């Protein structure tokens, strides 16, 4: 599956800065979309591609920090690079605490911004891959029948076939059959692999809360 080209969103209310940043980022061959306000960005359609946000903190209407919180609450995980005219410490601490990727002060040196953008895109790319893999595993796990899921739970918990048979009230042979189906459907190469996938699914579910692609 070929991934789409990454995209950088620039949000700044000052047109001259917006155009400058756009030109700068475009010069290294990245796709850029610009917005004059946070509301415009929220209203726009976003392509399914690795992305990052270059965001001015101080804007009329919804501020950069407000937008960051809104994206987080809506379960839209885009890495954010903040740009601020007055790098006051409490604000940057707050932004970093909420998971900002980088916090740069105006005027921003071109190279600093490009480095931050590349790092943010790389991070988003790997996060997306992780999410995609987790989704694939989830799909496989969800193809199991309820009985197979019960068997899976106990296998992963480290029980022997005999113990599973006792606990679920079935013959050991039936357990073996279910177990073979589980290994096949989840494409597990070994018991260890099965356990790893199961753990990963659990952490992924815990981390995102909702399943976004």
């Amino acid at each position, binding site marked *: 599956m070929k991934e789409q080209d990454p995209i950088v969103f620039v949000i700044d209310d000052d047109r001259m800065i917006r155009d400058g940043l756009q030109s700068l980022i475009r010069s290294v061959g990245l796709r850029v979309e610009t917005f004059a306000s946070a509301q415009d960005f929220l209203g726009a359609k976003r392509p399914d591609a690795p992305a990052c946000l270059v965001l001015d903190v101080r804007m009329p209407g919804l501020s950069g920090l407000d937008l960051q919180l809104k994206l987080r609450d809506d379960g839209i995980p885009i890495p954010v690079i903040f740009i601020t005219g007055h790098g006051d410490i409490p604000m940057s601490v707050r932004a970093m605490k909420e998971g900002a990727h980088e916090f740069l002060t105006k*005027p921003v040196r071109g*190279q600093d911004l490009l480095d931050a953008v590349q790092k943010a895109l790389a991070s988003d790319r790997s996060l997306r891959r992780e999410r995609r893999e987790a989704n694939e595993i989830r799909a496989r796990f969800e193809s199991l029948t309820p009985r197979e899921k019960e068997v899976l739970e106990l296998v992963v918990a480290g029980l022997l076939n005999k113990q599973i048979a006792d606990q679920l009230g079935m013959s050991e042979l039936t357990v073996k059959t279910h177990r073979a189906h589980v290994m096949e459907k989840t494409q597990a190469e070994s018991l260890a692999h099965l356990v790893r996938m199961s753990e990963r699914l659990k952490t992924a579910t815990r981390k995102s809360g909702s399943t976004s692609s």
Partner: protein
Amino acid sequence: MGRKIDAPSGVRAVARYALALALVTLALSISLAFQNSIGNPFWFFFSAAVILSTWLGGTGPGLLAVIYSTLAVMYCFMPPLHSFAVTPRELPYFVTFVACEIGVTQLISWRRRTEDALRQARDELEVKVAERTIDLKNANEALLKQMDEQRRTEETLQATRAELARATRITTIGELTASIAHEVNQPLAAVVANADACVAWLARETPDLAEARTAAERATQGATRASEVIARIRSLITKATPEKSRVQINRVIEQTAALGERQAANNHVTIRLELSPDLPIVFGDSIQLQQVILNLVVNGIEAMTTVTDRPKMLVLRTEPESKCQIRVSVQDSGIGLTEEVKGRLFEPFFTTRAKGMGMGLSISRSIIEAHGGRLWAESNGSDGATFQFTVPSEDSPGI
């Protein structure tokens, strides 16, 4: 007086009664001795004995003396003699005697009681006066201490007030600096971003000259914008220290009104002058005062641009505010001030206009304050606002 000071009260009582008996016995002896030479002598002597007994001994001994005297008179002088009977003929005389004796006793003992009460009251009064004197002295000291404390509190208050004024000034300067920093930093950020972009386009394997040029042009625009901001600020803040001379405020207003006349006419605004003819001379910087008035005039005209339902009138007024203060007011019939706007009017970079810098009123106020005056704004009820300032006259103290 028959009281011995250190005798116990029982002994003293007995002594008083004994004295009464002794006095009446003495009166009886004298009366017996003189009964042949003076007619009915007992009257005087017994009366004297009763008076003395009552006076020296009190009511009890007095009454004892009356009883003893009565018996003695009945026995020794009233016919029939040597018996305690009284003949009916002598009865009125005898009754009068007894009644007089009793009356005298009552009178004297009442008198004594009054005197005692008076003496006691006097003694108490003396004690009270002494107490009051001490109280008064204490109160006086407390008062002095309080006055001292109050003086010190006032001094502290003064110092605090001065400190507050200084802090406010510093805060205003701080706000101003922060705002200017932002205003200048914004175009500078654009310059840096575009210059970096320009370099990046040129640094590509095949340099993209068209993109590089566009970026370079934007960098130039940004730099121009930055210098414009600085120029605007400089033109507003130059001559921060006033060059003071003797100024006739009415002359300044006439000149300023003439300057604003053209803009007023373009906006169909009538400027009316109501200048008080006898105003003291102001000691100030006429250029700066003109700047302030012109600022208020332009603001007033702009506030009336959207008005259509009433005459657009700008009134410039001067009047003596107090003995050593002049008040200048600029009254418009424009859109007026909301409470929110009114609260922020004099903040630097606050503006209600799309193209305004928000510096005019802030700087006007600092100019007027540098002159020792005050600048403020008021709503005119339903339509318009009045901006006014005071400036001290030449001969006011402190100028």
